[in-house]
């Protein structure tokens, strides 16, 4: 099992599993190519690299992290046309965030979807929003995405 940290990414081949732990407002993007059984995951923190003080880690941002992950997967032998995506996270952990930052989780989800759309990667499942944390596991045997949380039943997409 490969553990992807915050603002980190990884690519793996069958039968290795990839996981990222404790997603709150961050978004976990899992991409999978069924034909070659290559999967990838990125844990993005922010919607966009624009206006960022430090731009040296593409995996931190939705608009750079997803193209970066795609590139890594293609380099490993995945076929772009076969890659499909599933996303999870983007929660709003505390209901009264009064400041103008609004809902960072929701903005991360929107930016993630835009980025996938731009790259023409179909989004086939999502488990986003609400107010709880998620741990996700991508099984590269079959492309299943397992979503675990502290209090809810485990879900499989």
């Amino acid at each position, binding site marked *: 099992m490969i553990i992807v940290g*915050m603002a980190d990414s990884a690519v793996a081949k069958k039968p290795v599993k990839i996981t990222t732990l404790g997603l709150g407002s961050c978004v976990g993007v899992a991409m999978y190519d069924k034909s070659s059984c290559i999967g990838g995951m990125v844990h993005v923190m922010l919607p966009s690299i624009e206006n960022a003080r430090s731009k040296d880690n593409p995996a*931190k941002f939705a608009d750079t992290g997803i193209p970066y992950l795609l590139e890594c997967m293609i380099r490993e032998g995945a076929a772009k046309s076969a890659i499909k995506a599933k996303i999870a996270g983007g929660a709003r952990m*505390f209901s009264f965030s009064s400041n103008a930052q609004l809902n960072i989780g929701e903005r991360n989800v929107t930016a993630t979807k835009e980025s996938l759309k731009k790259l023409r990667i179909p989004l086939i499942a999502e488990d986003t929003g609400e*107010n709880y944390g998620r741990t996700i596991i991508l099984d590269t045997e079959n492309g299943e995405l397992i979503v675990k*949380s502290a*209090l809810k039943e485990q879900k499989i997409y």
Partner: protein
Amino acid sequence: MKKVRCQARETKNVYRGIQMIGRMDELTELQASALKEIVNIGVGNAVTSLSKMIGKKISIEVPELKVEKIEKVPESAGGADTVVSGVIMYVEGDINGYIMMLLSRSTAEAICTIITGENSPDILNCMNQSLIEEVGHILAGSYVSSLSEFLGMNLKISPPMQTYDMLGAIMDHILIEMSRNVEYTLLFDTFFTIEGNRMEGILLTLFDSGSMQGILARIEAMV
């Protein structure tokens, strides 16, 4: 004066990052111990007020001072998927930062039992959640007021936010907020143990670099 480097995992990267936040690695021995002492006093006061409230002895460990890459904070605070009862507050005023109280489920339950007398309390019901929230608020309140007194600074804390969830999920919006401006943060990690079995919690303090400079300037002025 002898220079000490703060404990850090990726020394080379940390070094690069620290330059960006103002050469935190070059804390003198005096500065590093003064910082620890200040946090220790604050945490000491906080824990005393909790101890009075629940009528149990609480012991604390000397705080650990770490320079940590923001993305690594959940790991170094106990693991991103560790489920805890967490209370978060912002510190605002002359310095900016965050204070978090993280309790294991059993500790949160024990505190509820001590205060309400309820056996096997459900820490997810509103009353108990609000109780834990208030305990966190009292802790952070005395922490911040002792910091403010000691440093002669004007500080206040936000209302507490409580939830029971994975540690990474509880704190990631804070880390996102901090990561807009800095790559590294100063992290004070204090473990406290409440008399009795398996009751322990962590009080976590995060400051941004500007605030740290402010605190250091006050220390310089005092010596």
